[in-house]
């Protein structure tokens, strides 16, 4: 274990070697015995964590816990299942509805294309009659 990997493990798992994964810890403990630099790094990490521990949040006091319990006495419980529990059961219905809508959309779209598609590109007015005269197909022949 070199200094880079040791530093990386220190940052990841902290200065308490008991919290390290077993295989890495045994390797680290062996390396620490021989390497003064690693021991200094461990001491540095302990000092650093000691500083982090200086940041102590305020104690809210016992009244805080009692206040939550007291407030819970003023509200009713709703023991019905939450919405998110019901949603997965709807998924199958949603899927079926989507398939039906998609199929219906395809059919309607196909009908519209058949009845209006060629007409849109067909010549209109005198141009249509001239096409017929030339032996072409009018829109009513579709």
């Amino acid at each position, binding site marked *: 274990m070199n200094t880079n990997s040791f530093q990386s493990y220190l940052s990841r798992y902290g200065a308490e070697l008991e919290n390290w994964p077993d295989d890495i810890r045994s390797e680290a403990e062996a390396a620490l015995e021989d390497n003064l630099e690693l021991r200094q790094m461990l001491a540095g990490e302990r000092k650093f*964590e000691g500083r*982090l521990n200086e940041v102590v949040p*305020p104690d809210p006091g016992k009244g805080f816990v009692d206040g939550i319990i007291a407030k*819970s006495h003023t*509200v009713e*419980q*709703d*023991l019905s299942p939450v919405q998110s*529990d019901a949603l997965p059961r709807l998924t199958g219905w949603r899927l079926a509805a989507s398939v039906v809508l998609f199929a219906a959309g395809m059919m309607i779209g196909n009908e519209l294309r058949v009845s209006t598609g060629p007409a849109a590109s067909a010549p209109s007015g005198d141009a249509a009659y001239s096409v017929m005269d030339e032996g072409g197909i009018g829109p009513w022949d579709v």
Partner: protein
Amino acid sequence: MAGNRVAYLQPGFWRKRRSEKAATLTDIPDETLATQVGEGKRQAFEELVRRHAVKFHAFAYRYLKQEQEAEDVVQDCFIKFWQRPKTWDPERGSKFTTWFYRVIMNACHDRARARKRSEPLSEDIERAPDDGMDVDAKMQKRDTARIMRDHLNTLPDRQRQAVTLCFYEGLSHKEAAEVMETSAKAVESLLMRAKAALRLRIDNREELT
């Protein structure tokens, strides 16, 4: 004759029974208690509050940096849980505390976002533990705490969350990842970057002083 007396008439029976009941309640795992809250058991809810409210308050405080807001958030979350206990789904397989950390974190996030839109609150002054030290030592400790808190506050949100969950709350990387809805590897990476940034800031400050 005394041997024939009914058990509950014997001296100390009820006291013993009460203490046994209390002992068993404290032995019940969080997840079982949370499920019992869903069955309307008030004692289970109260036990969860007693076990964890202060810890969650510390977590919320580290996020919001404002004591009153932290208290409000934790109270709201617990009351919402009491009102709609089925929001806890034991079948998901996560620990109750891991799930509740996520609930608190989301509530803190919403609160902080709402605060940004309105008037920002002033942050509370960091307190150092009062353990019978003399005034100078107390002041020095308080200064160190304030400086460290300032350094922590300059970290990006995700890095600060990783430090708070893993270092201060003692969660494993996997649990922290669950709270933060990311991977354990990502948490490790956030931790490494956070610590490197903090060390750099501490070193820079020490060079200046």
